[in-house]
């Protein structure tokens, strides 16, 4: 009669199960620590970097405002195409939700939408505006204040990774704030101090102030909307003086972009570009 020795098999199974449990536990612990470190780094450490950079940029901006030589140039209205936001202004307010996303420029299909008259009509054929030299990439160009969104940040020239790690960034090849055209400023929503964390609070009618070497420029918000990351029409150059703010949407995701459009209502160039108040 043969006997079956079952004990070693059971013992080996127990050892295997314990080893698997130990390995699984260590792996999960490692993943947990990695994710914890990721969240801590993105939300807190990067903010420390950005705040330190802002201290230096603020001093640099003060120096730029004090020393840069501004100039006077002629401005001819109508040299740039009509803004699609003019059409948007006549639409009912668009809620800042993914439902508002669009992948085309408003009015691109040619539809005529009733537009609320915006400043810019009845201007003189030519006027003088205050200008400033183009800043170098990475240098401070202005300070943006949005009381409705708790924004008070120094704006840097450029929207590269390194630029946006120091604060909000002005997109090169777009107008400077306070100048004719469309000044585009981008900023982080979640990391690096999250300059535009509360940008969704901004509503039509709110004011945005940008102080540059040419003075204090006041904009009024016309529209907020959610677009796709490759909707480049929002950075187009339009007639008048516009400010376009862009940030990631929703928070903690780079899936879409939240865009706020505002037009100039006050400042040294307002009367020449958009007409008398």
């Amino acid at each position, binding site marked *: 009669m043969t006997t079956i020795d079952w004990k070693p098999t059971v013992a080996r199974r127990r050892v295997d199960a314990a080893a698997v449990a130990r390995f699984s536990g260590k792996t999960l612990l490692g993943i947990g620590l990695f994710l914890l*470190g*990721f969240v801590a*780094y*993105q939300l807190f450490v*990067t903010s420390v970097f950005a705040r330190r950079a802002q201290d230096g940029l603020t001093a640099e901006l003060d120096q730029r405002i004090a020393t840069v030589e501004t100039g006077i140039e002629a401005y001819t209205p109508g040299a740039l195409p009509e803004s699609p936001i003019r059409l948007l202004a006549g639409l009912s307010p668009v809620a800042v939700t993914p439902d508002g996303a669009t992948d085309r420029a408003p009015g691109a299909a040619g539809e005529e939408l009733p537009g609320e008259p915006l400043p810019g009509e009845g201007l003189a054929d030519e006027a003088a505006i205050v200008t400033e030299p183009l800043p170098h990439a990475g240098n401070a160009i202005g300070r943006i204040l949005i009381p409705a969104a708790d924004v008070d940040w120094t704006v840097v020239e450029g*929207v590269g*990774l390194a630029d*946006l790690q120091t604060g909000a*960034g002005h*997109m090169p090849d777009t107008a400077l704030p306070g100048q004719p055209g469309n000044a*585009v400023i*981008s*900023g*982080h*929503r*979640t*990391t*690096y101090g*999250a300059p*535009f964390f509360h940008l969704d609070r901004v509503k039509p009618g709110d004011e945005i102030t940008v102080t540059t070497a040419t003075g204090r420029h006041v904009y009024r918000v016309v529209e907020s909307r959610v*677009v796709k*990351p*490759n*909707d*480049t029409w*929002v*950075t187009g150059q339009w007639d008048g003086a516009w400010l376009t703010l*862009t*940030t*990631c949407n929703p928070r*903690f*995701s*780079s899936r879409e*972009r*939240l*865009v706020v459009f505002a037009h100039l209502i006050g400042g040294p160039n307002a009367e020449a570009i958009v007409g008398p108040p």
Partner: protein
Amino acid sequence: MIGRLFSSLPGPTYARVLQMIVIAAASLVLLILCYEWLGNTFLDTGGRIG
């Protein structure tokens, strides 16, 4: 694991400590680069368009 790594390093103790410091610094740099890439790709690109 750190103890096993330390034991496997060649040289006297002070040399092992130095090697451990270099390994830790390199690991930290790699970790931060990984965090940066993940953050810039999935969490927040800075709101750039295009």
